[in-house]
């Protein structure tokens, strides 16, 4: 029995196909398949079928997370990579806000967001050129104005029949008032202000100080609409963050024949608060140099952009 089976196995081995033939036939069948059925598009390939679902889930998770972050974080401001996502999500939110109450809520929230962004941009001024900050703040201001306009329109469309409608209108009024005050608080940095004239700087800073003191007076206000009195939260506190930094750079020019303007890299900080007198150390301004065209960035309120150029010759 075993011998017979062995002979059968031997015979089976003799019937073994040639590997080269197997391979060539496989290729021939591949070509025939392509001719008959066409090549398989990438989205019908097996690997894609297995990869598509996890990839889609991953994409959705990442996309949802990114969108949520972009939407909620005030750090995402104009110029940030995620800002377009934020804009889109906000547009969707606006579209979904159907009722006047929802719309009002949405626009008030928008105003808050824009002011938060303005604060972030203001903080960034230390890290980026003044020009960029000015532009970013200007853009935010435009957006704030747009939202305000929409709020005004909203207020006009809401009738004053019921208590709720009155309350809604009052809310809009309060938000607009609050915005008005906040707007004044936004510090707009000037473009590079070239010195070095200590008197002029002093004058400029004193002007700023006066404006800041004025602002301090506005601390709390009330809005009356109909029978409802709404108290807004104090938007201006006694400690207005107006400690400003004035950059007075000094620079040693290596050459004897120097053409202005020259930008300065090192700097000395001069601080001012609403209560202290601004003083510009004379040492900072008497720069030991062949030619100086120091630059400084001054922040002041309200949003007036002034560029003054001073040249000093020797």
């Amino acid at each position, binding site marked *: *029995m075993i011998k*017979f*089976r062995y*002979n*059968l*196995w*031997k*015979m*089976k081995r*003799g*019937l*073994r*196909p*040639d590997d080269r*033939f*197997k391979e060539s*036939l*496989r290729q*021939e*069948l591949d070509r*025939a*398949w392509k001719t*008959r*059925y066409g090549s*398989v598009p990438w989205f019908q390939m*097996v690997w894609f079928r297995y990869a598509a679902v996890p990839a889609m889930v991953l994409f959705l998770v990442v996309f949802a997370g990114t969108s949520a972050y972009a939407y909620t974080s005030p750090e995402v401001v104009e110029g940030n990579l995620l800002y377009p996502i934020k804009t889109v999500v906000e547009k969707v939110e606006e579209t979904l806000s159907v009722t006047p109450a929802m719309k009002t809520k949405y626009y008030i929230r928008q105003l808050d967001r824009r002011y938060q962004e303005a604060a972030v941009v203001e903080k960034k001024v230390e890290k980026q050129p003044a020009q960029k900050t000015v532009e970013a703040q200007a853009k935010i201001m435009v957006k704030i104005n747009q939202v305000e306009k929409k709020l005004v329109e909203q207020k006009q469309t809401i009738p004053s029949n019921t208590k709720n409608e009155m309350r809604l209108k009052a809310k809009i009024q309060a938000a607009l008032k609050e915005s008005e005050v906040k707007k004044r608080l936004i510090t707009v940095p000037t473009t590079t202000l070239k010195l070095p004239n200590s008197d002029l700087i002093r004058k400029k800073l004193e002007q700023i100080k006066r404006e800041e003191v004025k602002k301090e007076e506005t601390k709390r206000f009330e809005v009356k609409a109909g029978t409802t009195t709404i108290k807004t939260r104090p938007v201006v506190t006694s400690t207005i963050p107006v400690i400003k930094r004035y950059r007075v750079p000094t620079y040693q020019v290596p050459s004897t024949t120097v053409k202005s303007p020259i930008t300065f890299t090192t700097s000395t900080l001069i601080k001012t608060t609403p209560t202290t007198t601004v003083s510009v150390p004379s040492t900072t301004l008497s720069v030991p140099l062949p030619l100086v065209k120091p630059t400084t960035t001054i922040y002041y309120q309200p949003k007036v952009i002034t560029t003054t150029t001073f040249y000093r010759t020797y």
Partner: protein
Amino acid sequence: MDKKRFQRFYEENFDKVYRFVLFRVKGDREKAEDLVSEIFMKALEHFDNYDESRGKSAWLMMIARNHVISSWRDERITTVSLTIEDKEGGEVEEDFYLINKAKEALKTGEVEYQIRELIANLSEEDADIVTFHYLFGYSYKEIAEMQNMTEGAVKVAAHRAIKKLREHL
């Protein structure tokens, strides 16, 4: 159409079909290669009809069988399965048969020739079971699907056939 499925189908069946065809053309590799190519081309053309649930190998084996038979018919080669009516064809066919037999004996060797002869003496069903399992490499389950039998019945039939062959050897 799923190309990967066809490729898997090819990998699973190529060896078995090749052995089947080579056995049927009595070791003529050139001819076997031609026939196997044609069989798989046919399979590719009608792959829409392939239903794996009806049996993995039965569909392709049916194509292979029919194709081998049609190739014989085309070449007008009479084989062992000549019927009485066919024999009316004359002595020429008988001569062909004898010449082929002699050629085959030379080609395949004495033992192989003996085995072929013994298998030919078995009933058609037993011969199929023995050749498909021991020579072509089909599993009992696949043979059962092709023969419409249970797996156990195929096993018993194979064992009996081998016993019978051993007795005649």
